């Protein structure tokens, strides 16, 4: 969906917790869920379904949900809608009433909405004691639909071993919960039981299912006071609450000082005065660049001879490694000066051309300065001296031509001998090469031959080299 970047939605945030990444997603889902359940504005049909001898209260079919998502979120592909529905289910906002696995299907399977009490946005991190109480409670209720699944039975067994000493306490809590539950209306209980089960399906997922409560550790610091004692699902307060397994690095938050803001003000003032290009020009430039390079983009234009990943043939890579550049590759050198500098083979060709004109010192200087910047710290000073001696010192063997201003700056810098000593000089030489030598190279026979894949006849080559030998021997 193309959007202009002018419309900025300002989100008024009072509570810093609200802006944490997880919460942003939860609020969006809650928004969707609320709309989905809204009768008046075209929500999904939630109804009670008759089944055998009983009624199934408050359910909606998967198809209805998927249809609703497609219609209200402008989704064209049902596969996408199913995926989104599955995610909403996996997060714990809607669940299939007869399955522990939280996923969405585009069929007549029944789903129910989760109670706001159990919503993930309440930042639940339920303890194992709560889980133990829950599983224990389930075993106390003699109903087929509440029987423990295999993995739950295994979990219960492990918890019994782990909490051996306080099992009596847990048992009592479970009994108390069962008593409370018995007092509730039958239909209400059905709904609440399923919602409670769905809650635990999120926090203790079926083995093999994604645990959606896992957090990106980099975002954990903004949790609501993670050191605080966590609330219990069943209102159980314990003396020794175990620490959350999530690593919480503690770091004092650095307050912004007056100095910080003064710096910011200076920066903003400089930015306001900056020179900018019009959007229309920028758009043209981006489009032009993309159009020029699209034939070199293997993900858009199939690569010749083939994409190795698709054909399992590495011919393409072999060709690129060879010293003989393809026409395709040579053409790219003409796009910009940077292109020829980037390509090792292109650089070599350019260097050879310059050597034939006896003007290779500029490129060699540029390459030497690039190399300098890549040196380890301890070698920098030595290299600076070497470059100075070779290219810039009075009587240098490969003297480059710098204007006096640039020369002044550079000779000053050499005294400090840092990595960026020759930045100014390098920029000058770059501009010089770009406007002069590079332009001539593109017009030269050497380049044109490669570009048009012209093969030089042997005899012509022989004549050329002997002429070169002659001129060199004469000392020109």
């Amino acid at each position, binding site marked *: 969906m193309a959007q202009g970047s002018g419309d900025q939605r300002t989100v008024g945030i009072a509570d810093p917790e609200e802006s944490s990444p997880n919460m942003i997603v939860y609020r969006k889902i809650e928004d969707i869920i609320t709309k989905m359940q809204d009768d008046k504005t075209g929500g999904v049909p939630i109804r009670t379904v008759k089944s055998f001898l009983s009624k199934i209260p408050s359910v909606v079919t998967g198809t209805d949900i998927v249809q609703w998502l497609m219609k209200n979120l402008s989704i064209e592909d049902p596969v996408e809608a199913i*995926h989104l529905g599955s995610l909403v289910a996996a997060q714990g906002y809607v669940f299939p009433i007869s399955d522990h696995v939280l996923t969405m299907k585009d069929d007549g399977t029944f789903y129910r909405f989760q109670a706001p009490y159990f919503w993930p946005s309440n930042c639940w991190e339920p303890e194992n004691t709560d889980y133990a109480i829950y599983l224990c409670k389930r075993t106390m209720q003699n109903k087929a639909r509440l029987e423990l699944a295999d993995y739950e039975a295994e979990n219960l067994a492990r918890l019994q071993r782990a909490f051996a000493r306080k099992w009596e306490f847990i048992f009592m809590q479970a009994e108390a919960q069962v008593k409370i539950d018995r007092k509730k209306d039958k239909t209400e209980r059905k709904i609440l039981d399923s919602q409670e089960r769905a809650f635990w399906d999120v926090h203790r997922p079926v*083995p*093999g299912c994604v645990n959606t409560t896992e957090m990106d550790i980099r975002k954990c610091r903004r949790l609501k006071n993670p050191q605080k004692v966590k609330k219990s699902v069943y209102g159980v307060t314990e003396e020794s609450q175990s620490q959350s397994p999530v690593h919480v690095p503690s770091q004092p938050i650095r307050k912004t000082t*007056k100095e910080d803001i003064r710096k910011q003000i200076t920066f903003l003032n400089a930015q306001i005065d900056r020179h900018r290009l019009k959007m229309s020009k920028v758009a043209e430039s981006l489009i032009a660049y993309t159009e020029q390079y699209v034939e070199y983009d293997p993900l858009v234009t199939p690569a010749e001879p083939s*994409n190795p990943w698709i054909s399992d043939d590495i011919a393409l890579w072999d060709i690129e490694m060879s010293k003989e550049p393809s026409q395709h590759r040579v053409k790219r050198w003409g796009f910009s000066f940077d292109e020829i500098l980037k390509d090792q083979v292109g650089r070599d060709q350019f260097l050879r051309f310059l050597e034939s004109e006896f003007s290779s010192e500029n490129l060699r200087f540029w390459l030497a300065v690039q190399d300098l910047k890549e040196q380890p710290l301890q070698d920098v000073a030595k290299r600076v001296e070497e470059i100075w001696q070779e290219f810039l010192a009075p009587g240098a063997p490969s003297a480059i031509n710098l204007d006096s201003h640039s020369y002044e700056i550079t000779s000053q810098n050499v005294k400090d001998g840092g990595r960026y000593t020759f930045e100014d000089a390098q920029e000058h030489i770059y501009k010089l090469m770009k406007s002069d030598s590079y332009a001539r190279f593109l017009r030269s026979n050497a380049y044109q031959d490669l570009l048009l894949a012209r093969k030089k006849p042997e005899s012509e080559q022989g004549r050329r080299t002997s002429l070169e030998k002659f001129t060199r021997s004469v000392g020109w």
Partner: protein
Amino acid sequence: MCDQTFLVNVFGSCDKCFKQRALRPVFKKSQQLSYCSPCAEIMATDGLHENETLASLKSEAESLKGKLEEERAKLHDVELHQVAERVEALGQFVMKTRRTLKGHGNKVLCMDWCKDKRRIVSSSQDGKVIVWDSFTTNKEHAVTMPCTWVMACAYAPSGCAIACGGLDNKCSVYPLTFDKNENMAAKKKSVAMHTNYLSACSFTNSDMQILTASGDGTCALWDVESGQLLQSFHGHGADVLCLDLAPSETGNTFVSGGCDKKAMVWDMRSGQCVQAFETHESDINSVRYYPSGDAFASGSDDATCRLYDLRADREVAIYSKESIIFGASSVDFSLSGRLLFAGYNDYTINVWDVLKGSRVSILFGHENRVSTLRVSPDGTAFCSGSWDHTLRAQPQALLLEVALPGLEPSDRPGPSAPVNLRGRARTTCKTTCSGIKMGPVSQKLPKPAFQSTLFK
């Protein structure tokens, strides 16, 4: 003629210097005092600094921000997608996973390509860093870090070393050796030291320098040999989550994104921020330069990706959809910059048409969050890493479909049998409930229904 007229109320002892002088009334914090003329002047200039409280400075900064936005908006004469209407639309895409790299025992957090276009390094939550030849899917090297959550890893330009780090607050460089007898961990070199987790690292053009980003809110440039800090970059107001070096041959800049919702462009030589953008509504998880170096894209927890142009000095495109509500964790461009690949926390990869702003394709295939995504150096494929413990390499064939009467656009060719170099052994994913370890599970692994139609 007197140049100053003031009312002389009284002649007496100055409340400040106590000298006997002509006094005038002054108000200090709504209290009336009597100062002599010289003291009153001093107070007037002092007051300037006193009034420069944190609050007044902040409001000045806010009003400058507003003015900056005004200036930026002045040159906003057209939208990118409007100009791009004349560009030919991209055809249908056929996307297929060509290689699946299995071997990490836990969430894959980061990956990087080697310049040889086939090797990759990947790191995961369990501390393992693996170097693969992704073309053959062979593992070539593996090292276990002393910390968990290795959030950053990078391949050296020479292909002879890798760098990685995470919760250990450090960035370490490991030379790659093919000598079976040598223990990779033995030659480890600790290069960067931060005061909080390492979120991103990247070599510059050489093996000798590394650029790092950290949860301590700073970025830093280090000399690998000596471990010395060459330059540090301060300015983010919260954790820095990502960085990318400008692709230019002569450039010395990089961009970083952080939890303060800001993307900042830095000059590596001076350590100064040269441009900043603050339009995202939440953490910026990933930044990547457009191939020409004139723009960059960002992916954020606000479920959008955005394109910022450095010459226009503003955000020039937003890539979002109503149905995408989970954050984007990782972005990268195709070689020409026409496509933007973005991995999301909803397990999908969305492919965007950079110029037109529309979504070209959506890829399913991962079974958990996509945490990292990089296009290969020659652009022939891209690789995504996920919390589902796998890495997938995906090239694609673009079919430019000529519209024929009667041919439905939704008649996509079905996926053909994928090429398999290795047998598919499904690793059982183990989930642990806090504190309870699950033993061997004999249950069938449930799979969402849609997967079987799109991905084999």
